[in-house]
């Protein structure tokens, strides 16, 4: 407390007369309250304005195409016909498959970091995994184009094709640009998010529960399966949906590797496109106000999807962090630090 009294603001306050201090307090108290309130109000207004403005820009396209836009599989600036079907498909398939790969991988990483790793290695490895989230998406996209794509065309895709070619997903000719590289890049992006939130949840599992299971003769894996995973279930689901939200909205890295092609193809090797990526790739090429408005329509669909996914994820994560708070006070902040990268 002694140090507090020397903090820079205090001497100035002491030099004021009692009357001046009274005045400062009478203005300062409501002043600071009002100022911080105004900041919050401005933040809330910003969100409302954002939603309104995106839909307002989409207005021309919405009145022109209506809801048929959602199911029309066409993007033709010349005949001015636009539709979102292939992009909705691309968004769904790329982010869901990324989640299918990233989910188990992240849970395994989180388990390694909370249960298996030598104590001294835990923090550094956890930090490294979180740093993966800090790589700018445009750099990952660049890596995708120049390093990953040739590897896929020459090695992975032929291998998948010859082994699983009978599954429609792995049919057709290989190509450096397409859904597969997009899925892999998205996986790299969401693993750190899911892994770090999941790790936080795992760390809140009470030690007594784990030790009881071990004392009853469970192997470590049985303890994980019967104690940790059930306890952390909702946290894992929340973390995965958070990752899904990130994957849905990623524009740059996806547009760099996905090939920007309209049309619905089952094969993962074929070029495709997502909502976010189509908006990003048309940034200089829009030729008519209807096309710009249709891009805003795509953004509006994306916004609605992201809002739904995030609301669900936050509700779930919030519920399990509440439980965390009861267990330990330090949990929440680390989640926030991890999410700042998300």
């Amino acid at each position: 407390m002694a140090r507090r009294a020397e903090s820079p603001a205090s001497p100035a306050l002491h030099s004021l007369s009692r009357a001046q201090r009274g005045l400062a307090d009478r203005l300062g108290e409501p002043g600071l309250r009002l100022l911080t309130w105004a900041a919050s109000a401005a933040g809330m207004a910003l969100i409302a304005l954002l939603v309104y403005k995106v839909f307002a820009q989409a207005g021309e396209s919405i009145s022109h195409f209506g809801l048929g836009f959602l199911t029309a599989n066409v993007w033709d600036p010349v005949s001015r016909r636009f539709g979102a079907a292939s992009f909705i498909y691309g968004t769904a398939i790329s982010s869901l498959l990324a989640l299918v790969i990233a989910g188990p991988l992240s849970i395994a990483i989180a388990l390694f970091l909370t249960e298996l790793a030598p104590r001294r290695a835990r923090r550094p490895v956890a930090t490294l995994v979180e740093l993966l989230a800090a790589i700018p998406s445009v750099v990952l996209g660049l890596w995708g184009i120049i390093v990953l794509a040739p590897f896929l065309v020459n090695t992975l895709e032929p291998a998948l094709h010859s082994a699983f070619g009978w599954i429609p997903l792995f049919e057709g000719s290989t190509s450096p640009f397409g859904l597969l590289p997009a899925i892999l890049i998205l996986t790299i992006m969401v693993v750190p998010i899911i892994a770090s939130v999941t790790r936080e949840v795992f760390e809140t599992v009470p030690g007594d529960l784990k030790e009881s299971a071990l004392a009853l003769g469970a192997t470590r894996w049985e303890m994980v399966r019967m104690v940790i995973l059930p306890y952390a279930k909702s946290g894992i689901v929340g973390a995965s949906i958070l990752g899904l939200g990130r994957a849905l909205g990623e524009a740059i890295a996806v547009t760099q590797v996905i090939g920007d092609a309209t049309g619905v193809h089952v094969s993962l090797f074929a070029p495709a496109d997502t909502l976010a990526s189509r908006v990003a790739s048309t940034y200089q090429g829009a030729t008519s106000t209807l096309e710009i408005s249709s891009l805003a329509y795509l953004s509006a669909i994306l916004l609605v999807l992201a809002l739904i996914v995030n609301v669900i994820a936050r509700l779930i994560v919030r519920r399990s962090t509440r439980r965390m708070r009861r267990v330990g006070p330090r949990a929440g902040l680390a989640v926030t630090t991890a999410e700042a990268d998300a």
Partner: protein
Amino acid sequence: MSAPGGNATAGGAGTRHPLLVRDRRLRRRKLVNRTMEATATLAALIAVAVLALVIASVLIKGVSAINLDFFTKEPAPFGQSGGGIANSIVGTVLLVAMASVLAVPIGILIGIHTSEFARSSVASSIRFALDILNGVPTIVTGIFVFGLLVVGHVQSGYAGAVALAIIMLPIVARSAHEVLALVPSSLREASLALGVPRWRTVLTVIVPTAVSGLITGALLAVARVAGETAPLLFTSSIASTMVSTDPSKALSSIPVRIFELSESPSPAEHAQAWAAALLLIVFVMLLNVLARSLFGRSRARIARTR
């Protein structure tokens, strides 16, 4: 390693331990256990290996393209070799600085509001809304600012900075809230009990205690937006190749430049893209490491006051 199955075997050496009666089942359980442990270890190795792979690519390909010209020269005209990204470096510094000036004070004020003044139901709704804002895809933020500031005008550095600020705002505000909430209530109560008014308590006791945590949040937000491309495409991408400090026109930026270079077929441009990526990654990683160490120190300091 200390799996109880192992203990049982060791403890029962020589004698016929009850657990060993069902030897085959135990062996299977231990096998499953070991397989799963190996899988988890492998997964962590893969994650670290991917990080190493990406960073190694950027390092190896970036270092060879970096020279003095890269930092000081403007891009060479199309088809000529050489040149640098001076205009993009200046642009990124300006954009991020302007965005921080907008977002950091407002974000910290929101954090103070939610942690010190607002009723808890109001505060948690505001934090919820901020989390949702944090989840808005950045390309949508770009389209929003495009409609707000660019349509009817031109792309500008101001518009780009506003878009980046919108992305920073929830990060700064949320972390400010969390850090301020960490300040022990005993400190708060001591100050109030001495008759210090609430606002003065906030400004002279609570904020100074949490200041390094507040800086952490700001640094993480800067690290995040320094690498953002999507919100700038519609707001500040059609920029001149000359070094410009005029925010009323579009400013070039490092991420957008990497994006353009990466779409080019020319190997020389790819080399420049790698060099720019190296610069960006070094900057972002440094900020992250700095923020993390500051945060650790801040937490330790707050723990001492407790």
